């Protein structure tokens, strides 16, 4: 067992599909910019999940066909989207009131690092940044009822992203409760990281070898 042992990892779309399985009907969900946005594509149309976008939409629908683009309907990533039946429009103060007020059942964010305490670092790589930018990440990290993180298990160079304490600037303290990576699903509990499941062909030992903190069995 070593971190250098090659294992088969999930693709971004497989990771998104895996998260979608755990989102039940009735939840109001904010999907972060980037990979988390893909999750919406894997929630079946007959399962009513309400997607919130922090620029002021409750009830985001799928991407429009090019001929149906409405320039006034974009998501937080500034991509054109549609409104589904039942959608509503809110201003920014209300949109972030929804976030901070604990009204979102779930927010799925991308991440650089998650600590075993649930601390999240996802907005800045420190001095490497050309100019700092935060958007709504700190509000979402602090406000949603559940904060899940979708990210690769390690950096490109193989460094763990699940760590004892974050080395990058923090986004929110102690807020992450679950992490979906390209090799595992992991809960963040009072004990620290607990393995929920491994990707096909991946073992507990494989995951532990790529994790920068103690991994517990459920």
């Amino acid at each position, binding site marked *: 067992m070593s971190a250098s042992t090659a294992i088969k990892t999930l693709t971004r779309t497989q990771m998104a599909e895996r998260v979608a399985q755990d989102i039940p009907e009735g939840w109001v969900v904010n999907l972060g910019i980037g990979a988390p946005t893909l999750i919406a594509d894997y929630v079946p149309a007959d399962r009513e999940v309400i997607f919130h976008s922090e620029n002021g939409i409750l009830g985001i629908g799928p991407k429009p066909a090019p001929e149906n683009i409405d320039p006034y309907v974009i998501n937080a990533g500034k991509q054109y989207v549609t409104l589904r039946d039942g959608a509503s429009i809110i*201003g920014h103060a209300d949109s*972030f009131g929804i976030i901070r007020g604990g009204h979102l059942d779930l927010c799925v964010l991308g991440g650089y690092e998650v600590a075993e305490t649930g601390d999240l670092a996802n907005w800045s790589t420190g001095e490497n940044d050309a100019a700092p930018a935060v958007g*709504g990440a700190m509000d979402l990290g602090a406000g949603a009822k559940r904060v899940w993180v979708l990210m690769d298990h390690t950096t490109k160079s193989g460094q763990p992203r699940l760590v004892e304490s974050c080395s990058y600037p923090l986004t929110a303290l102690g807020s992450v409760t679950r992490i979906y990576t390209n090799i595992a699903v992991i809960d963040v509990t009072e004990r620290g990281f607990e393995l929920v499941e491994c990707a096909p062909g991946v073992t507990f030992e494989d995951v532990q070898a790529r994790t920068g903190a103690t991994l517990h069995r459920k």
Partner: protein
Amino acid sequence: MIDKFVPNIAAALEGIKDGATILMGGFGNVGQPQALVEGLVELGVRDLTIIANNAGGAFGGLPKLMETGAITKVVCSYPRSTETSIFIDLYREGKIALELVPQGTLAERIRAAASGIPAFFTPTGAGTLLGKGKETREINGRLCVLEQALYADVALLLAWEADRWGNLTYRLAGRNFNPIMAGAAKLTIVQTEHVVELGALDPDRIVTPGIYVNRVVHVPDGQVVF
């Protein structure tokens, strides 16, 4: 007769001075009053502080304002853009200052200014770099930071419909920061897509009542081409 309509952009922007702090509606280019922002370039005012969610300079008049050196500081949540690096270039050269604010805190600081709340505690940013140096307090078991209301001299907004009293509606995601910025500045100037007769707007449908609005200029098809 109350009539807040002015005939053109120059009349709308009259009196804006060097050193002004300016709130600018919009999230990305949706809901941003492009004609008013470009009017600032024409006006030639300098030493501006711009408060806007995206001050990265991707859209319309903002990059032009930056290029001419008219902006000395931006207060925003997301100053990066994929379309242009003008902000980052100026920032690296030390020619523009940045106050980075979490998006929800930015919205609430503006709303607070408009509604007479001088400061408030929020959990957003507590324990992070953006909470550093701010007064903190543990409230109901959660660490919170004290954030100050964000006042401005001028607010530039984009509406969908306006009447001569300055009552406004917005269209879809074009609403974003516009309603809270109305009232947070001493002078609120609106660019509207449509003009309607007084009484034509159903009172239940008016999002921003005219009390917050000083001037309105009609710019049909004023939204930028996407």
